[in-house]
């Protein structure tokens, strides 16, 4: 059986493990550059950049320690048209534990959190070839803004940022 709870500093090794498993599923595992130290500072320091929910599994009638087998990392963003938003950055359940309703329960908990904190909506991105995830979200009422409204995600990497941030030549 499973239980959902808020992540604590001691969970950072498990969070990083699951981040890497999700990146592997997205076929981009070599892009994870964060360390446990970064995650600890960024999530549990003076100015947290993210919040995290964990899913723990414990076999019935077992004395073993519960195992962390799923997570959702989120933070709050802002839409100048509607106000606060909950942004879901990562959402993953280990393969052997899928199909048990864990993902569904995590999503419901996040929606409840969004309502409680006065967020008008919950946003996230999905890779278009991740058909099973897109179906999961659409079945529950999500809209694909890229497809329906034409929004495209753009990114400047570190080199471009440094270039733009440099003072202009006189």
């Amino acid at each position, binding site marked *: 059986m499973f239980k959902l709870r808020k992540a604590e500093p001691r969970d950072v090794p498990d969070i990083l493990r699951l981040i890497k498993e999700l990146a592997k599923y997205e076929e981009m595992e070599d892009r994870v550059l964060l360390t446990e130290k970064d995650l600890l500072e960024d999530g549990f320091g003076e100015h947290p950049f993210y919040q995290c929910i964990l899913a723990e599994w414990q076999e019935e009638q077992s004395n073993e320690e519960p195992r962390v087998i799923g997570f959702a990392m989120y933070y709050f*963003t802002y839409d100048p048209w509607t106000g606060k938003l909950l942004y879901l950055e990562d959402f993953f359940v280990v393969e052997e534990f899928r199909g048990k309703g864990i993902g569904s329960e995590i999503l419901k908990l996040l929606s409840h959190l969004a309502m409680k904190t006065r967020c008008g909506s919950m946003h996230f991105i999905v890779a278009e070839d991740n058909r099973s995830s897109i179906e999961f979200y659409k079945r529950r009422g999500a809209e694909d*803004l890229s497809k329906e*409204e034409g*929004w495209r*995600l*753009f990114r400047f990497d570190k080199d471009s*940022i*440094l270039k733009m941030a440099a003072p202009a030549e006189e």
Partner: protein
Amino acid sequence: MDFKIRAAKQEDCKEISRMIIELAVFEKMQDQVKISTQELERDGFCSNPRFECQVAEVSEEHKSSQGYTVVGYTLYFYTYSTWMGPTVFMEDLYVMPEYRGKGIGKGLMSKVAQVGKEKQCTRLQLTVLDWNTRSLDFYIMKGARDMTASEGWHALRFDGEALDKLAAEAPKD
């Protein structure tokens, strides 16, 4: 024409609200604007601000035909990448039409890059509408990559009834 880029103050929210609506009209989505100047003030200038804002200001002698001296803005906030760490997300960037072509947009975006760099951000992200070719070209020329085209990323949203329904089914505390 000289202009100044500076951090927005609470008093600027009235002008920022005006320009948010102008940008929404340009994006053909003005019916989606629901928040008021008061809510912007509350959310941006409280003890735990939800966003930051920079404005572009011109002198009195260059004020607009309707008398405005605040002629552009950018609204941004900090997000997190589980691969790379802190990121800055530029939610809005807008310059009034009569003030374009003078380097104001570039100035506002550079300011966001500078602020992001100070906060150790490794990425600056934004979304653009696919028909907005002038903006697409502007960002690409400055080094941005279209992640929707190159990696297939789509933006999804739960709101309204769908969000209410999910929330109602959440496990009780």
